[in-house]
């Protein structure tokens, strides 16, 4: 990987708010055209990380670089390089779609004729033109999301930061939105996305998992799934999930149990195969119909496991 390939670089990025360490010594790199997904529970520090990378929040410590520009030293200079879609979208609800887009286009493009052309181009691209004269407040979630994206890309930024762009949006719109993002990535735009949706995480080239401000896992989804859990993951089907969870929770070899519809995923803390042990336990409780099988961990399993481990470590240290 050539060094010039790297578009975003964070080294030891840290942000403190008083006693709270919102982002704690986070380091990673993102290549050009890559889709980087930052995940983590509420309050993990995702938005704080993005805001530091965008140059609107000064890091307490550490270094950040976008397209070779030192963000910490010269935050003003990255502004033309980046686009930012904030977590709350930040649209002017009383202005029309065109007025919203035109506002940002004109701020970036001094020539108003060109700005208007570019606004039309963006509306065309995101299929917003039929709503051009609708006020933003009247749009539904999916279209609001597109409008927010449109406002962020009027200046064709090579790097795009999207803070939970799909929160509160229906699955079909989310799907279509990701198709747009992939098209942009294919054109060479570097995308930095935060999300709570695991299926979206699976679609990223690289994911980082933030836990209480710390980067607890980093790598491609495949790599993370393979390497993050040193033990096994088992799927149990065919019986009441609640009873399974009750039976297995607290066993010495079980690290974490979680329920997915009618299935239960069990993460162990020993590398040996425990399929038969689990079956025995369930039979002892009369759950004879249980089908137990080792399985490949999902991203969600990995994050459950990491959260569990981290919480345990903290408890032990105390």
């Amino acid at each position, binding site marked *: 990987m050539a060094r010039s390939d790297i578009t975003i670089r964070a080294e030891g990025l840290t942000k403190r708010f008083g006693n709270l360490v919102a982002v704690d010594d986070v380091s990673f790199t993102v290549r050009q055209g890559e889709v980087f997904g930052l995940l983590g529970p509420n309050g993990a520090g995702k938005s704080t990380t993005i*805001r530091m990378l*965008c*140059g*609107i*929040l*000064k890091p307490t410590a550490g270094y950040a670089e976008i397209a070779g520009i030192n963000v910490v030293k010269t*935050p*003003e200079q990255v*502004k*033309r390089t*980046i*686009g*930012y879609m*904030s*977590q*709350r*979208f*930040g*649209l*002017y*609800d*009383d*202005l029309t779609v065109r*007025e919203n887009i035109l*506002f*940002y286009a*004109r*701020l*970036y493009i*001094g020539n*108003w004729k060109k700005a208007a052309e570019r606004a039309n181009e963006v509306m065309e691209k995101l299929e917003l033109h039929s709503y051009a004269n609708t*006020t933003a407040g009247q749009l539904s979630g999916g279209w609001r999301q597109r409008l927010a994206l449109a*406002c*962020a890309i009027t200046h064709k930024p090579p790097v795009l930061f999207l803070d939970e762009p799909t929160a509160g949006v229906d699955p079909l719109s989310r799907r279509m939105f990701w198709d747009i993002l992939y098209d942009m990535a294919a054109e060479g735009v570097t995308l930095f996305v935060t999300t709570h949706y695991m299926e979206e995480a699976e679609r990223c080239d690289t994911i980082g998992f933030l836990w209480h401000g710390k980067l607890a896992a980093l790598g491609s989804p495949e790599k993370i799934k393979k390497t993050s859990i040193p033990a096994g993951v088992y799927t149990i089907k065919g019986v009441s999930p609640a009873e399974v969870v009750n039976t297995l929770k607290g066993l010495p070899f079980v690290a974490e149990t979680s329920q997915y519809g009618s299935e239960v995923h069990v993460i162990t803390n020993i590398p040996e195969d425990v399929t038969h042990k689990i079956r025995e336990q369930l039979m002892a409780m009369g759950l004879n119909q249980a089908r137990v099988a080792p399985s490949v961990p999902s991203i969600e399993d990995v994050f459950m496991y990491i959260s569990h481990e981290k919480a345990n470590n903290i408890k032990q240290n105390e």
Partner: protein
Amino acid sequence: MNNKQISSFLSKVLTFAIKEWNHILRDRRSFLLTLIFPAFIVVFLGYAVTLDVNRVRIAVLDEDGVAGRQLEKKLEGSTTFEVVQVPNLPEGIELLKEGHVQAILQVPRAFSKNLFFTGKSIISLIVDGSDNNAARIIMGYLADFAGKGFYAVRHSPPRKTTVKYLFNPALDTRLFFVPGIIAIFIFMMAVAMTALSIVREKEQGTFENILVTPVRPIHILTGKVIPYLLIGFVNFFTGILCAYLFFGFHVYGSWVAIAIIALLFVACGVCLGMLLSTLTKSSLVAWLLSFILTFLPSVILSDFVFPTRSMPGVITAVSWLVPTKYFMHLLRDISMKGAPLDQLLHYVLPLMGFTFIFMLVATRRMKRAHAW
């Protein structure tokens, strides 16, 4: 700055001004209210609040019997007074306490005799001081009255007391304080509208989006000044027009001077609004701050009706920090006395200073929040 930088600056400023203008026009009802408000306030307050004293009930205790009767007749003939006879002082005091009368005029025994022989005599006036303003006016009226009332008693008047009121010959207090009302409300509106327009962006989360664009605080601030300056300016003249139509307000000085000081004053309010917007993230707080910091000082410390000169020294000093005070004096001096602007620089320059300082501090504070 070269041409390219200037055009880039103008483009950003105008982008903000146009966007702001769109917000204002989109909310038709608020916009109309904004335009009508000054007219409403001027007419409503102008008619409701008056400092003129009308139909003052006064008790006359006539111990003399001769001059007293004459004075009484005179008083009854005027529309200002309504006379009640009392037989003795304690009864008069009782009426005063109960608020049935506002003053007692006591004409002592041998009043006319003394006046006839010595040319001097004493009458006493007891005024209800709880309405300080009314008391002062009653005293003024009666002093004037007593002087004239006794021409008939003596053949030639002893000494003529003449008071001539310059600048507001009819002594119509409305003409005195209607412009003050306009000043107070224009200022408050300019401050509140500007502060809210910026704080709203913080609340909506649009401010965060603006921060990542290549605009600087100066673009945002200048862009927002333009529409609110325009509205404040129009509001001022709506108010003045109403004062003219309803109360016969007249400008003796130059209209250009009035326009210049109005523009300066509104600019001062807009800049103060910006400064306030950097202190809070909540619309409610912004509104309260605007109200408390503009309305109360403007009413109390601007010589609107309460003369700051007669306040304790510290408060007089503080009153010089109230921009409305400068404007109040400018407006009165130009409209009533016809004073030219170059003689009023001691009011104009501080107002300019305030405007500049507010703008500077607002930009500074926003810059700190903006980058780092």
